[in-house]
């Protein structure tokens, strides 16, 4: 069975305001505006650009941010992905 990939549910549903200290994102589907720090912004942007498995995503983010893929790092990224999932922005699916 292929490993599920993280996708944006509706990439067009997000309106971005990017800034040096993070971003504000309007989620048109819910009408809510969210503030994301640079870290969270980078994760969400990565999923938007390329749907990826969790393992690929961890590798990609660690490479880009110069971090090590240790337990704390995995926990942090997973937690953030689950937050995005709860906001109905991303989902993991087997395609």
């Amino acid at each position, binding site marked *: 069975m292929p490993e599920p990939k993280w996708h944006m549910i509706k990439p067009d549903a997000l309106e971005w*305001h990017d800034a*040096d200290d993070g971003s504000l994102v*309007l989620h*048109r589907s819910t*009408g809510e505006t969210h503030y994301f720090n640079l870290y969270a912004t980078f994760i969400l942007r990565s999923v938007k650009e390329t749907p990826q498995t969790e393992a690929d995503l961890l590798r990609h983010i660690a490479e880009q941010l110069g971090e090590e893929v240790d337990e704390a790092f995995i926990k942090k990224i997973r937690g953030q992905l689950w937050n995005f999932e709860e906001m109905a922005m991303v989902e993991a699916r087997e395609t």
Partner: protein
Amino acid sequence: MKVSELSANALKQAARDGLTLSTPPFITRIQTPIDTLQRSIAHMYGEFDVVGPDEVPDFLVRVDGTGGVRRFFRKQCMAYIDVETPFIPLPDDLSPLMLEQALNWSVAVRTGTYLVFHAAIVAKEGRALLIPGASGQGKSTLCASLVASGWQLYSDELTLLDVETGLVQAHPRPISLKNESIQAMQEFAPDWPFSASYGGTPKGTIAYMLPRRADLEAAGQLARPVAILMPAFKKGVEPYLEPMAGANAFLQLIVSSINYGSFGEEGFLFLSDLVKRVPMATAHYGDNAAGVALAEEMMAADEG
């Protein structure tokens, strides 16, 4: 005709039946049988124009006594907006505060056409300075200081922004001052008219600095927001501006807005653009004159 041109009896009768005032851009009808409030309206709204009873008001505010046993030992009043009453009763002698509270609530909640911010706003030659800030940060005092220094009063409490034109609308009303800032403003603007002081409120003592006739006559004007200043008053602080930008600036504006959520994407795109165009800073200052100087500095940046 101005309110101050009504005889005491005419005002009393009008207040009982419904006194309709021009409070641009709105028409407001105030109805009250309470003597204290009638006298206060004569003073605080003396420069406002009375309009005919046939004008359809945007807001109808009734301030009346409450029932119950309590009225026998301390009279209380309550404001009703049409038939709603989202307020808690106040003693009769604080009825002028009840009226101000009810008028602010009406503008904030019932004004669907404007993006409304909990922010003071003043202007000069069509260029407006927004002063957002939570209660107690010095928003109204800075606004009052600027008005006493020649700026036009748009509002000390609620900024009305038209997202289609990007312009702010003046809605001048008495400026609410609290505790130490009352005396500070009376010293800063000794010739200015002020209301009576009202003690024993949940926020301490409150008094109002009254708008000039010139502010009311210019109330139909619109201005372009060119700077945003968050006041951070602290006695003894050396004045300086701390620039604010990016996501934090955007976030501060969302927090200051009362009805941002109801504007959806239009509101988001408008604020996103505003934050990119308009400089924003926190003003640290320890006295009124220093606050005015920092505001002038912000506006000068736009001229440059």
